[in-house]
């Protein structure tokens, strides 16, 4: 083993550690923003794993789509949908879920580990070792163009559906957007800065 292979192995473990730490933060954090930040760390680790699996293109797509888009959408969801006191996951119910969660995870772990270790993985007889983006793009647009078209339709429907879902109930606000009553739990009103003095001020 050369020096560079040692470095590569070390980096691999760094990525594995990123995934583990990130997913641990994701599932254990009590503040929702921390949850999403942990998810971003785990996504970065997964991007590194994709690099080790030979695909530079998917590494970049992972960073671009997951870290750059999905995490931002989730943060928007937290900021828009939650009031400040609720951004922290308060003890809505007691911790009776822990036992259920641990047993479900353990059952899934053992079942999958058994099947992974018992199966004999046979590589295909002839393997094309072309991980380039050119090969991927050609396959995408010729052989597997149904997947390409399908994902574009799915994304279009998702955009339209998201707009329709989120628009519902917005219409009342249109008359006077700045002085619109804050419709939230009672304690939200104290936290916002809309008072009698700055009622018409858009920046308030």
């Amino acid at each position: 083993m050369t020096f560079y292979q040692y470095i590569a192995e070390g980096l691999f473990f760094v990525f594995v550690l990123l995934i583990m730490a990130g997913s641990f933060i994701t599932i254990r954090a009590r503040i929702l923003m921390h949850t999403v930040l942990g998810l971003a760390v785990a996504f970065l680790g997964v991007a590194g794993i994709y690099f080790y699996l030979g695909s530079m293109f998917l590494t970049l797509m992972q960073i671009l789509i997951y870290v750059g888009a999905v995490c931002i959408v989730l943060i928007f969801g937290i900021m828009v949908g939650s009031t400040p006191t609720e951004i922290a996951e308060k003890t809505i119910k007691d911790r009776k879920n822990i036992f259920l969660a641990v047993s479900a995870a353990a059952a899934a772990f053992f079942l999958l580990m058994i099947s992974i270790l018992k199966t004999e993985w046979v590589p295909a007889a002839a393997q094309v070792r072309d991980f380039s983006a050119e090969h991927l793009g050609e396959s995408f647009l010729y052989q597997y163009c149904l997947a390409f078209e399908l994902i574009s339709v799915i994304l279009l429907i998702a955009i339209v559906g998201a707009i329709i879902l989120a628009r519902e109930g917005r219409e009342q606000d249109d008359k006077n957007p700045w002085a619109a009553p804050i419709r939230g739990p009672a304690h939200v009103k104290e936290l916002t800065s809309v008072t009698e003095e700055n009622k018409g001020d858009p920046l308030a």
Partner: protein
Amino acid sequence: MILISDNLYTYLILAVFLLIAGIYGLIQHKTFIGMLVSTELILNGAGINFMAFNRFLAPDPAIGQIITLFIMGIAAAEAAIVVSFIIAVFRKYHSIDPDDVMELKG
């Protein structure tokens, strides 16, 4: 000498770890956003699985990458839909607790 980063089992076990972390979080989180985040972990585990099979077993390395890209698209669409759903639910129920949303419950 077998490199750890050049072994199918490493990646499969990593994917299993992501899956069980996702299942654990899905049950244990108490908000919609937390559950959505855990779902993303599960989808990433599936992506690693496909990429590992693609690297070590598949005849054509484009297939696994295409499936993983497909999963990424599905995850992005799902995140957008669920976030707008959360906003709609919050507007109607003023709550992010999944247990409060039970109007369909008999």
